């Protein structure tokens, strides 16, 4: 048998540094090629040839395939000639060519014999050992997992659908018969195309697993272009996958593939975001556009198949079965292989130790869950009963918590506050926070109530997780979780109905947990002297989870936004390696909180007001007066205990004292000073935040009856608790890794202090749960506060307002204008400044409900009162609460009112004929009401002589109106309402509240939150995606 003629062809563009090594490897080949051609393309210069006999061929084409074709055109074929196609980033093993030639000799029908590709720097790691595709062909499936260790486990492979043409041996006759390398693929997927053509032409494709070549994959990693990493070529590779699918698809399958392309994008983009691979997500987005550009090349490929006769059936077993496809997805996309390998790294002994530790931690979790559940149940049993009975939790400054999901959405989407006569809000972020609760079964009434009742349990679970990153001591973990969950100001906030501080407290613990996982600043399980982490040290998903948790905390309590920014920026300065991830954590809260920052900046000339805006209370909560330092330090308020137990007031100090002293003591530790410093800094910042809140007017009068309120220092107190726990647990975590009697003593002292703090916390719970204790100002009431028919009018097509009159014991009359079934702090307060002006950018003036005070007074005392001012503001009903006999007497005599009904919730009257509406067209004194929601409405009726559109809201530039598509001009209104002149013969009048700055912010916030939500999903990813 004669030695075949082997023509080695190595093309280089001179853009990589691997060529000398590649040439040296060819020179060292045990089986020397008959001739070696070095094709210099794109102006590459001749390299050092290591004494190799090389024929240099210069080409000016721009692709590898074209360069090969050009060379072969210049080199006549010889009988039985074999082509060895080499790249400049491939270094074959000395015996590789010999094995390829031998295999070619054994397989006369084989047109291509491929080599096994291994890593350039680690030849034990496999890169490629053949490829296949699914039947549809839109997904390339490698036959080995990338980076799998080559232990000969794939040596059985022989016939494969495709091999890489790089370093493959190809019969020249077949090469030319199959039309050469398809240039349309642009360098990716052309090997698969060529091999499939071979099979479809009746030829074989064989892989030789023992023929090893090191492959640097310069093209794949973008080293030949400006791109960096595999992500830079992802779009082209995906397009080539689709190219292959379309080119080989029968005609009937083409429409299905055309549908699959966008579907694939829709599915893949969120997954890529979840995998924190934003560059690849972007690449997935551009695939359809690139594919359209590729259509001529696809048609050309399909034509080539017919031209060369590559139309024979290919054995089904060569294609990937569905299970193989699924395995490939799990391994390649989701990184299952890497995780499995990581889990198997520790020895059996270590794994046993870890399992034992996990069992201990599970027990500690059970204890925390049981104790926190018992505490929550003991304190909230009355609320649980009330919620089950259809009541709601309310209280001073809380309002109605039974608001509908549409009310919540309206505030979140538009930012418009419907309190009183309405006003533009800074943002709708707090309502956005409530939106998920509102859509859950039971609505806001139940979910908000459940949240408050279950808050200690949620805080305990979050704190338990977070504590586990600072110390692996189970008891300390339990102690920290319970101390944080039963932190007295937190309990006080729950039972005062302060939703924002409660959410912020829980969110801060979640943020601490996610932060530790995101940065890798955490402790692993101690096995011997070594720490074993249960997952990757730092997680990008956790970074976005941190961002989300911080967003929740800062939306619930905006006073935390600036401190959060300061803390993360300082940490970023100190930890340069995590700077990018820390920046990501800030991005979402800053975007979402931007309107508040802007509003504060607009008041820069009045720093006290600006600080108050930054410290604003966005949700429910009453004004607070007292010693801020007591709240800040977490000292129990004995007024909330049963009178019998107040003598034990010293117990209320124990938890706070233990925690603060432990935090300061931790600072003296040599080993744990960093975490102690971070913790103590948090304590200091928390104290400062408490001062800030307590000395600020966190909400000014809302022009709807709600007065100004002073801030509750609870959010700062939560930071104090968090900081002290970070310092104390950090020290404990360090002590556990140190040997010696001194450290053992330290651990014992720490555990004792933890026990003391937990005992004090539990005692506080017992004292608050004791019969006779007044836990807070929140109470339970019927979920609907207005008589039955009235809310129907409020939610009806004309969106009537309701005037509620309540005769007080001192004879004065309290009046409230409601657009909802009760005050609506639960979906966000009205954002008004110190003089009643809107803090949002779209409102210039704001009409106070006091403008109807005189009418209210007259109507409450005289049956002859003129009520036109009520109808002018869209008030369609008056409700007199129980006991208002004098008021009812006057209203009964008023001819402009009709009694609508009497119930235990009050007596309801309709104003006029009940036709009041939120907006109407005034045509010569006749009103044509518009069907309206809180922020928009329309009328389809022919308005012959023109008229005036009146919207019963304070005028502002956010209100816009149209007639038959034309924008209407605003006109002056005597009441200060939004009014627009309607031209003659208009047939479709509509209006809406559209605050452009709000809308921009909304979408920016929505995108940021959506990105963080998807990215926070802890979805695994392979190295390919990580690269």
């Amino acid at each position, binding site marked *: 048998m004669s030695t075949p003629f082997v023509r080695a062809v190595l093309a280089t563009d001179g853009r990589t540094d691997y060529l000398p090594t590649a040439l040296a490897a060819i020179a060292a080949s045990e089986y020397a090629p008959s001739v070696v051609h070095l094709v210099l393309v794109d102006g590459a210069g001749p390299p050092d040839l290591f004494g190799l006999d090389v024929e240099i061929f210069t080409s000016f084409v721009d692709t590898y395939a074209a360069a090969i074709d050009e060379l072969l055109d210049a080199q006549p074929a010889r009988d039985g000639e074999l082509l060895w196609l080499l790249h400049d980033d491939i270094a074959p093993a000395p015996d590789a060519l010999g094995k390829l030639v031998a295999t070619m000799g054994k397989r006369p029908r084989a047109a291509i014999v491929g080599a096994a590709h291994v890593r350039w720097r680690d030849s034990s790691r496999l890169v490629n050992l053949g490829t296949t595709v699914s039947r549809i062909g839109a997904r390339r499936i490698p036959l080995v997992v990338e980076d799998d260790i080559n232990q000969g486990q794939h040596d059985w492979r022989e016939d494969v659908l495709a091999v890489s043409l790089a370093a493959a041996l190809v019969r020249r006759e077949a090469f030319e018969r199959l039309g050469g390398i398809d240039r349309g693929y642009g360098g990716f997927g052309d090997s698969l195309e060529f091999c499939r053509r071979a099979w479809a032409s009746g030829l074989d494709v064989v892989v030789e697993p023992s023929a090893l070549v090191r492959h640097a994959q310069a093209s794949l990693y973008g080293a030949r272009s400006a791109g960096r990493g595999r992500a830079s070529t992802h779009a082209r590779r995906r397009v080539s996958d689709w190219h292959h699918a379309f080119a080989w698809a029968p005609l009937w399958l083409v429409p299905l593939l055309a549908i699959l392309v966008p579907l694939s994008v829709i599915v893949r983009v969120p997954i890529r975001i979840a995998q924190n691979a934003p560059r690849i997500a972007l690449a997935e987005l551009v695939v359809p556009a690139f594919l359209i550009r590729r259509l001529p090349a696809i048609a050309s490929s399909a034509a080539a198949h017919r031209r060369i006769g590559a139309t024979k059936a290919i054995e089904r077993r060569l294609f990937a079965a569905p299970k193989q496809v699924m395995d490939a997805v799990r391994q390649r996309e989701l990184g299952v292989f890497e995780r499995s390998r990581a889990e198997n790294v520790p020895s059996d002994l270590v794994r046993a130790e870890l399992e034992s530790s996990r069992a201990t931690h599970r027990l500690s979790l059970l204890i925390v869950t049981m104790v926190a559940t018992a505490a929550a149940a003991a304190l909230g049993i009355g609320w649980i009963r009330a919620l089950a009975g259809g009541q709601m939790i309310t209280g001073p*400054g809380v309002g109605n918590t039974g608001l509908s999901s549409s009310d919540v959405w309206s505030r979140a989407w538009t930012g418009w506050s419907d309190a009183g006569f309405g006003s533009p809000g800074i943002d709708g972020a707090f309502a956005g926070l409530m939106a998920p609760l509102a859509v859950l079964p039971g609505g806001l009434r139940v979910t908000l109530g459940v949240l408050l009742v279950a808050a200690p349990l949620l805080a305990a679970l979050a704190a338990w997780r977070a504590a586990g990153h600072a110390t692996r001591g189970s008891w300390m973990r339990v102690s920290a979780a319970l101390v944080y969950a039963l932190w007295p100001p937190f309990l006080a906030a729950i039972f005062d109905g302060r939703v924002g501080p409660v959410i912020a407290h829980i969110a801060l613990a979640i943020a601490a947990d996610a932060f530790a996982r995101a940065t890798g600043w955490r402790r692993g399980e101690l096995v011997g002297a070594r720490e074993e982490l249960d997952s990757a040290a730092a997680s990008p998903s956790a970074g976005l989870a941190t961002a989300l948790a911080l967003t929740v905390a800062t939306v619930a309590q905006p006073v935390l936004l600036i401190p959060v920014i300061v803390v993360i920026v300082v940490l970023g300065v100190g930890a340069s390696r995590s700077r990018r991830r820390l920046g990501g954590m800030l991005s979402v809260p800053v975007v979402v909180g931007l309107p508040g920052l802007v509003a504060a900046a607009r008041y820069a000339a009045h720093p006290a007001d600006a600080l108050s805006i930054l410290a604003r209370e966005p949700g429910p909560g009453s004004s607070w007066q007292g010693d801020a*330092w007591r709240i800040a330090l977490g000292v129990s308020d004995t007024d909330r205990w049963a009178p019998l137990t107040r003598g034990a007031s010293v117990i209320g100090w124990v938890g706070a004292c233990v925690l603060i002293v432990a935090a300061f003591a931790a600072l003296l530790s040599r080993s744990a000073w960093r975490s102690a410093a971070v913790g103590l800094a948090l304590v200091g910042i928390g104290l400062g935040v408490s001062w800030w809140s307590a*000395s600020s007017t966190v909400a000014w009068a809302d022009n709807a009856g709600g007065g*100004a309120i002073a801030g509750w220092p609870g959010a700062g107190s939560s930071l104090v608790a968090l900081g002290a726990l970070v310092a104390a647990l950090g020290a404990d975590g360090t002590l556990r890794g140190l040997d010696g009697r001194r450290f053992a003593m330290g651990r014992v002292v720490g555990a004792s202090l933890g026990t003391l703090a937990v005992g004090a916390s539990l005692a506080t719970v017992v004292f608050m749960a004791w019969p006779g204790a007044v836990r807070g100002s929140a109470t339970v009431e019927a979920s609907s506060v207005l008589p039955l028919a009235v809310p129907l009018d409020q939610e009806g097509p004309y969106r009537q307002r309701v005037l509620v009159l309540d005769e007080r014991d001192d004879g004065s009359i309290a009046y409230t204008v409601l657009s909802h079934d009760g005050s609506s702090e639960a979906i966000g307060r009205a954002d008004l400044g110190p003089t009643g002006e809107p803090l949002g950018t779209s409102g210039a003036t704001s009409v106070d409900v006091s403008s109807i005070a005189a009418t209210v*007074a007259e109507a409450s005392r005289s049956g002859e009162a003129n009520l036109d001012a009520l109808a002018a503001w869209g008030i369609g009903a008056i409700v007199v609460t129980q006991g208002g006999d004098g008021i009812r007497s006057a209203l009964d005599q008023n001819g402009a009112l009709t009694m609508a009904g009497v119930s235990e919730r009050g007596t309801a009257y309709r104003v006029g004929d009940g036709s009041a509406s939120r907006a109407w067209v005034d045509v010569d004194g006749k009103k044509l009401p518009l069907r309206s929601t809180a922020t928009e409405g329309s009328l389809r009726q022919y308005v012959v002589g023109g008229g005036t559109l009146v919207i019963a809201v304070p005028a502002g530039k956010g209100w816009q109106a149209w007639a038959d598509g034309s924008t209407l001009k605003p006109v002056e209104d005597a009441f200060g309402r939004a009014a627009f002149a309607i031209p003659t013969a208009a047939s479709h009048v509509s209006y809406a509240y559209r605050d452009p700055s709000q809308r921009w912010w909304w979408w920016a916030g929505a995108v940021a939150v959506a990105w963080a939500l998807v990215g926070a999903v802890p979805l695994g990813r392979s190295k390919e995606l990580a690269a």
Partner: protein
Amino acid sequence: MISRIVTRFTVVLVAALGAFAVYVASPATLEASSSSTFSIASPAPVVACPGPQHVPVGDVGAGGDLASEPTQRTFSVYAPVPTTPLGDGQAADSAVATQVEIIGDGDIEGWSAMSCGQAQLDQWLVGGATSLGSSARLVLANPSAAPAEATVTVYGPLGQVQNTLVVAVAPGSQVNKLVEAVAAELPATVLRVQATGPGVVASLQDSRLEGFQPAGTEWVAPSDLAKTLVIPAVGAQDANAAVTLRLMAPEGASVELSLVSDKGIEPWSVGRALVLEPGVVTDIDLPRGLAGAIELRADSAIVAAARTVVPRAPRESIEGDVAYDHMWVSGEAVREGTLAGVVPLQGARIAVYSPTNAHVVVQDSGGATVVEADLTARTVQWLDVAAPAGAELSTKGEFAWAFVLESDAGYLASSEPVNMDRTGLTATVVSARFPAGA
């Protein structure tokens, strides 16, 4: 090493600064929600008079010796403006009016008078009885153009009667209800009339029989509810006149009673605090021969009235029969202001009480002084009034008074003035949240 020290120092400094700041933190100064007070134009006053009295049980024995229906009746309504019919009674667009009725025979023989009242939402009628021989007829009038609903609660010697009476009173109409239909066999009653809407004018006809003899008939006018009350006219010129004081405290009270004569406070054996159980109606007989007033001072709001009974020889009788007439004078809360009333009958006297040393001047509607007198503190004076029936008289100052009509034949009636200062209205309104929360 230096960086560690600097870092530790910095964080301690941050913590110390935070601690200092929070220690000196003072809560923000907040502007309280301001209330606004508005003066409301008073609605034109309208008074309603209940009209003639009825024989409670109908026309049993319409003729002969057992005739019950009166055949001699003089009924007059005096008002500064023309009156309009309102059910059996009449209404007048005025603040004051009075009705007087003289019945010469039948079961309800006697004199009766009362000042016509304005509609109220909550009023207490202290008087009447539903025991055998007694009848209490409640008259509710609604002179307004809006409907009203009245809820009548009856109190007796054993406290509040469970059953209440709910009566709808149409605009411009009058409704009569016999209290005995709701609460029979109560020797002493107090009625609370709570109304919705424009309120009602409530009056109670208290008519009694002693065997076959009339034992008095009179209208009971509302009593004030207050901690300090004065009943300005009790007793009569007849030395045999008997006086019964009726008291009730809705929430319970401890009451100090004082008898007042033209000389001052009279000694009285009851002169210690009287404890009233909540809702329990208490009758106390006063010493005979008294002609003066009663002061009541309680630690909780009470209502009160006094019934003066005068005996007389019956028109037709068998041996030993005695006929009576009576009058009810309700408790008045003494306050500074203008009291006005219409003289129901020529020859009426005024019993006027003053808590302080004062000079009382009774003027007619033209401002002319009809009668005047000096009063020492806590005394009552009986003044003769030289004014014709229908004359509007008024006093200014801190007084309580009543017209008393008395004949030598043993007939008796009284009417009390109305407070003219109540007509001014104000309303204090404040914008508030709802629900306010506990």
